[in-house]
C-alpha cells in the first residue's frame, strides 16, 4: 500500500522544490512530478516537510495521567505535525533508571508518533547523585536533563558532563539558580512589582547559562540549553558558539510569543517556568532564532488538569500546552522564511536529540517516511476544547494564528489526514 502526497512544495535541509512524494513501507520511494499511489493526500498550497521533532515535551506518564498520557500527548504531537517527541523525565516516578525508561518506551510503542525519552541527570532529579546514565544510554536515551530543576551544584554538573561525554550523550540544562528563583512565580520586573507577585529575575537563568558554558569549555563536553528566555542567555550562547564551543539551545514557543504583561490577568494559564519575560527578552529570543544562536523551537508542552491549574497564581503549577500550536505560532510570530521555520522545528532539534537520519531527514527516495504537510496560509482560531491533549491549559485560547498542519505521516503511516486523527 503506497501513499502519494500530491501537489505540495517539498522543503527539507537540501532546499525547496515542487513535487509529489510517494511513500511505501515506511520509506520515501519517489519524489517528482505527476506521481501516483494507492492513497492520495492532497497537498496543494501546502508545504511537505520532514516531520517535526519536539525535544521538550512533558507527557506526564507515569504519574499524572489525569493531565496527559503518552497516548494523548502523542496525538497532540501528531496534530502539531510532529513525528517524534522527547519526553521529559520529571514524571512520578522520575525517569532516572533503566526500568522507567523501558516503561516509557513500551508505553510509547503503540503511540501514533515516535516517542523517545530523556533521562534524569541525577537520581530522583534531586541534584545530589548521578543517575545511571550508562544503563539508560544503552536503551537509546540520548538527552539527559533534570528538567523542572537545574543542577544546582557546579561540581556535580562538572562530573555529569564529563561522564556524559564519555557515553556520547548530551546534557540538557534547565537553567535556574534556585537560591535566586526560590519563591518566584513570574518574571521579576515592572509587572511583578505592580502585581505583587514574587518574581524570578533573569539572572537566575543567566547565572547558570554562564556557569555551564564555562563548564563546557572546561570539560570539553557539549551542553544543550533548554527553553532560554532572556536576552543575556541568548547573547552568551551566541558568543560561546562563536568561540567554537559545543553549545546548543532551544527556545519555547511562548517565549517568542508572549510577555510577562499577560500575568496581569492573574490567570495561571500564563504561569510557566522559565517565566514569560518582557518584550525585549521576547525580541531577543526571536533574534536568536533568526540568526542561529538558538537551534531549535521546543514546545515545553506541559499539560495540567483544570483543577490543578485553576488555583491562586502563586499556588498553581507552571506550564502550558504547546504541541498543537507551535508551528502556527512560529509562522505567525516569527518573520522567517519557511525553510528556516521548518529547520527550527525539524532537522535542527533532531540533530540535538541524536535522531539524525530518522527524523528531520531529507525527503528523498530511501529516506524515512516521517513527514508533515502543512498549509502555511490557513488561519484558524485556537479553541482549547478542540485540542487532542487531555488538558486545556493553552494560553492561546481565542488567538487567531496562521499555518495549520494538514497531514502527518509517521513511519509511512498517515496518522493525521486532513486534520483528522486516524487511530
Amino acid at each position, binding site marked *: 500500500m503506497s501513499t502519494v502526497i500530491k501537489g505540495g512544495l517539498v522543503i527539507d535541509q537540501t532546499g525547496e522544490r515542487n513535487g509529489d512524494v510517494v511513500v511505501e513501507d515506511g520509506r520515501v520511494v519517489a519524489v517528482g512530478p505527476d506521481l501516483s499511489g494507492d492513497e492520495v493526500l492532497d497537498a496543494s498550497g501546502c508545504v511537505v516537510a520532514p516531520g517535526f521533532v519536539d525535544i521538550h515535551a512533558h507527557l506526564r506518564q507515569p504519574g499524572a495521567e489525569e493531565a496527559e498520557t503518552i497516548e494523548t500527548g502523542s496525538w497532540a504531537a501528531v496534530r502539531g505535525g510532529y513525528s517524534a517527541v522527547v519526553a521529559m523525565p520529571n514524571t512520578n516516578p522520575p525517569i532516572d533508571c533503566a526500568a522507567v525508561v523501558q516503561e516509557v518506551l513500551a508505553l510509547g510503542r503503540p503511540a501514533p508518533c515516535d516517542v523517545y525519552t530523556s533521562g534524569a541527570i541525577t537520581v530522583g532529579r534531586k541534584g545530589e547523585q548521578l543517575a545511571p546514565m550508562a544503563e539508560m544510554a544503552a536503551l537509546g536515551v540520548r538527552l539527559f536533563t533534570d528538567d523542572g530543576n537545574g543542577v544546582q551544584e557546579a561540581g556535580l554538573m562538572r562530573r555529569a558532563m564529563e561522564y556524559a561525554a564519555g557515553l556520547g550523550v548530551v546534557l540538557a540544562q534547565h537553567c535556574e539558580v534556585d537560591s535566586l528563583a526560590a519563591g518566584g512565580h513570574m518574571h*521579576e*520586573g*515592572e509587572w*511583578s*512589582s*505592580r*502585581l*505583587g*507577585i*514574587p*518574581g524570578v*529575575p533573569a539572572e537566575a537563568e543567566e547565572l547558570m547559562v554562564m556557569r555551564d558554558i564555562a563548564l563546557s569549555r572546561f570539560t570539553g563536553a557539549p551542553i544543550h540549553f533548554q527553553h532560554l528566555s532572556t536576552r543575556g542567555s541568548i547573547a552568551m550562547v551566541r558568543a560561546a558558539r562563536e568561540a567554537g564551543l559545543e553549545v546548543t539551545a532551544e527556545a519555547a514557543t511562548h517565549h517568542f510569543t508572549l510577555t510577562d504583561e499577560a500575568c496581569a*490577568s*492573574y*490567570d495561571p494559564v500564563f504561569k510557566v517556568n522559565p517565566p514569560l519575560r518582557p518584550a525585549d527578552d521576547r525580541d531577543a529570543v526571536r533574534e536568536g532564532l533568526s540568526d542561529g544562536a538558538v537551534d531549535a523551537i521546543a514546545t515545553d508542552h506541559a499539560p495540567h488538569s483544570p*483543577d490543578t491549574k*485553576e*488555583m*491562586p*497564581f*502563586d*499556588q498553581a503549577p507552571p506550564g502550558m500546552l504547546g504541541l498543537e500550536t507551535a508551528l502556527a505560532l512560529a509562522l505567525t510570530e516569527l518573520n522567517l522564511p519557511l525553510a528556516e521555520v521548518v529547520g527550527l522545528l525539524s532537522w535542527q532539534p533532531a540533530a540535538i536529540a541524536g535522531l539524525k537520519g530518522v527524523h528531520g531527514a531529507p525527503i528523498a527516495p530511501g529516506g524515512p517516511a516521517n513527514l508533515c504537510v502543512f498549509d502555511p496560509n490557513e488561519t484558524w482560531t485556537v479553541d482549547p476544547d478542540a485540542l487532542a491533549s487531555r488538558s486545556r491549559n493553552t494560553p492561546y485560547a481565542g488567538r487567531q494564528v496562521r499555518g495549520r498542519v494538514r497531514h502527518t505521516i509517521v513511519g509511512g503511516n498517515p496518522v493525521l489526514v486532513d486534520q483528522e486523527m486516524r487511530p
Partner: protein
Amino acid sequence: MKHLLSINDLGAEGIDEVCRLADHFTEVSQRPIPKVPALRGKTVAMLFYEDSTRTRLSFEVAARRLSADVMGFSVSASSVNKGESVRDTVATVSALGPDAIVVRHRSAGVPQQTAAWTHASVINAGDGWHEHPTQALLDCYTIRDRLGSVAGRRIVIVGDIKHSRVARSCVMAFTALGAKVTLVAPPTLLPPEVGSWPVDISFSLDAVLSDCDVVYGLRVQKERQSDALLPSLREYTAQWGLTAARAARLHPDALVMHPGPVNRGVEIAPEVLDQPNATLNEQVRHGVAVRMAVLYLLLAADPDLRPEGAGA
C-alpha cells in the same frame, strides 16, 4: 462599577466619589441610630482566607449599618481545611446568593480570579502583596479630613514596601489624587523596578522627615530577618523607625499614619502614637464610613441601572 479589585478601578474621580459619599456615612454613623435601610435585602459574604480582625470587623459593621445581611465564612471552620479549592468555595458561597463577596487571601490576584467565578460584586480586602484598596481609600479620607485635601501633599511611606499591599494601593491612590509620594526603606524592602513607580525613593528617613505633610509607617514582619532582608529589627528601628526624636523634627501639623496593627516601638515609638497628630484610631473609624461608601457604590448606586421614570 461592578467590583473593587484595585485602586485603578476607581481613579481620581472614583476616589473623590467614595470620599464624598463617606462624608454622608460619617453623618449616618453619628446619628443616635447609626443605621440606614439602603442595602436592606442585600447580602454581603465575607470570604477571609487570612487572619484579619480590623478589616473584617470594619466591613461587617459597614454592611450592617447599611442594613445588609452579613454572611460570615470562617476559613478555619470551613471545608477549606479539607482541601477545597478557592474556585469551589467561591462557587459554593455564590450559590447562597450574596450580592457582594469581600475577599482576603494571601495570594495576589485571588479577588480578580474570584470576580471571574461569581456573579456577585467582589471587593478586594487584601490580596498577598498586591492591593488593599479600601485601606488606601480610608487613608485618603483621613488625610482629606485632617488636611483638607490630598492633592499637593508630600507623603512619606516608610517601611516594608516590597511585601506591602497597603503600599501599592496607597501609592496609586495618593498619586492619583496629586500627592507627591516618597518611599523610604532599605533597598531590600523595596519592590523590584521601583523606578517605574510614580514616586521618589529615599533610603534615609532623616533626609525627608522635616519636609513632609504625612509620615505613613508600614508594618515590618519579624520574618524579614530570617529572609535575610534585614539584619535585625533593632537596626531597622534605629535607621527607619519613627522614634520620638525623629517625630520631634516633623512639622507640627504633619500626620503620623499607620494601617495597623502596629509593632509598638519598632515602626513607631509608643509616645509618638499617643500624639494628637497620630491618626491611627481615626483611620479605623473612617474605615467604616469608607467601606459603607464602597458597598453602597457597588450595590445601590450602580450607574448602569437607569431610572424607570424621572420625577420629583
